[in-house]
């Protein structure tokens, strides 16, 4: 007999999981609140798509970090280097495949982009494995040492990027199929931003399925709450952590590749530059919460684009303000994890 045979009849279940929709509702609320301020509907559509695209790329970069924070309480300030290395990995492949991308066909573009993205994920994942094994493993449980050693690692590997790829900024060719914009009504929408939204949604859906529909996901969610109890049930949490760390680094690499193609350039500092926004997203979402990270990233992306248009001088501080407001409302983030 299986568990299904004994599972209670769904009709007899009194209590069910209540999904907290309020944080998710903040996304359309913020977008609609910006509409009268922006004034022009086409401009608002363009800004909203840009904000969502930025949010999705930030989500890809931040989702691994929030799991690492949640699962093993590790403060990894080196996360930015996985973003940079992923971007350089993609840039290396795309630069070599430039002739294919100039052919102008979608198939040719994909034949360049897919290997580029895979290279970004593999390179960043490999570096993540090295970081966990060499730098982070000796400093489990010591936040101060974690901050110092990961910051040091970030600086050293930024310099190593200069050694391998050179100190100059590398211009990144964007495949022709995702270059330019299309017109929707009166709004101009960049093709690349739509692609970023699609990829971001696909990554979120894959992570949601992995976390909610598999045994590994069940272990990760339990480990984020109470790693000691997971060990007491007979599971080796360290092995799980290495897997999550490598996967999170790979996702940061994917985000880095997407971010680099968005900016059409690659620098060693790009990961470091986006790190502050990533930390804001992780804190807003609730440490360890992938769903919170997703909502937080969309809010940050939208806020940055609306304020960048309405009050450019406030753009830098707008996300700090957003974080303050959210933490005043929910001090442990949008979707706080009940850590033991």
């Amino acid at each position, binding site marked *: *007999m*299986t*568990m*299904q*045979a*004994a*599972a*209670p009849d*769904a009709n*007899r*279940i*009194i*209590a*069910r*999981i*209540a999904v907290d929709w309020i944080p998710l509702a903040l996304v359309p609320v913020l977008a609609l609140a910006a509409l009268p301020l922006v004034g022009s509907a086409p401009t608002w559509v363009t800004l909203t798509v840009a904000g969502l695209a930025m949010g999705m790329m930030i989500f890809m970069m931040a989702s691994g970090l929030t799991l690492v924070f949640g699962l093993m309480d590790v403060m990894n300030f080196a996360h930015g280097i996985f973003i940079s290395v992923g971007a350089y990995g993609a840039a290396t492949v795309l630069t070599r495949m430039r002739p294919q991308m100039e052919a102008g066909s979608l198939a040719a573009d994909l034949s360049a982009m897919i290997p580029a993205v895979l290279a970004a994920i593999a390179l960043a994942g490999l570096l993540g494995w090295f970081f966990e094994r060499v730098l982070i493993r000796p400093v489990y449980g010591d936040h101060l040492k974690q901050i110092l050693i990961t910051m040091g690692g970030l600086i050293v590997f930024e310099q190593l990027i200069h050694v391998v790829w050179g100190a100059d900024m590398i211009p990144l060719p964007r495949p022709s199929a995702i270059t330019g914009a299309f017109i929707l009504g009166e709004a101009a929408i960049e093709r690349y931003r739509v692609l970023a939204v699609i990829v971001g949604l696909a990554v979120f859906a894959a992570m949601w399925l992995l976390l909610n529909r598999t*045994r590994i996901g*069940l*272990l990760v*969610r*339990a480990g*984020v*709450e*109470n790693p*000691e*109890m*997971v*060990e*007491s*049930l*007979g*599971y*080796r*949490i360290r092995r799980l952590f290495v897997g999550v760390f490598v996967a999170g680094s790979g996702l940061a690499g994917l985000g880095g590749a997407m971010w680099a193609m968005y900016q059409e350039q690659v620098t060693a500092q790009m990961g470091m530059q986006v790190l502050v926004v990533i930390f804001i997203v992780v804190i807003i979402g609730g440490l360890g919460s992938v769903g919170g990270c997703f909502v937080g990233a969309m809010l940050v992306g939208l806020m940055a684009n609306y304020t960048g248009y309405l009050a450019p001088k406030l753009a830098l501080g707008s996300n700090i303000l957003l974080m303050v407001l959210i933490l005043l409302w929910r001090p442990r983030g949008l979707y706080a*994890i*009940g850590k*033991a």
Partner: protein
Amino acid sequence: MPEPLLSLRGVNTHIAQYHILHGVDFEVPRGSLTMLLGRNGAGKTTCLRTIMGLWRASAGSIRMDGRDITRAATPEVAQLGVAYVPENMGIFAGLTVQENLRLAARAGEPEAKRLEWIFGLFPAMKTFWNALAGNLSGGQKQMLAIARAIVEPRRLLLVDEPTKGLAPAIIANMVEAFRELKRTDTTILVVEQNFNFARSLGDAVAVMDSGRIVHTGRMDALAADGALQTRLLGLSLDSHQ
């Protein structure tokens, strides 16, 4: 007394600069329910955590069924068939009741027959099958913590203060559940401060004070000796009634 399933010899445990256990010696007989009693701060929880490998013994030895587990990592101890219910219950609040139980079933999905048995012990687990564990009441959380520990047959259950903060009706439910567990010949070590609960279930008893075992014997003998209770625990059974 039957041959011990678990034995501790001269176990010392340090937590940071604090020396908590000072040469703890006691045995848990196979198939019995042993109560570990003592005042607050006596070292009972440290003792369970040391057995479980959550804190490392700095000296002495812990043997489970003849095998030395003093230096074993927590997952290794669990894989030997030891289940642990901590004082804070350790349930995963963000997971449903169902997910908490599925996670504890290391062999895969829990067996339907076993689940029916658990639902018989704790009907609330069936009622709240798809509810988030964090939304359960204190008593239901304790039931879930114990249900999770027994979702598969275990060789040894370590349970830390199962009645802490529970209403009398829930405690009565717990007593029944432990009686049913005893009928399955499961070896159980329970840390407890509720002497009535301990008396009604315990076969053997060990009493701790200041990180040492100060008494071992049969539970019924301690329950019958008011003077000994007063000396060991500071209270006699009479004052509990």
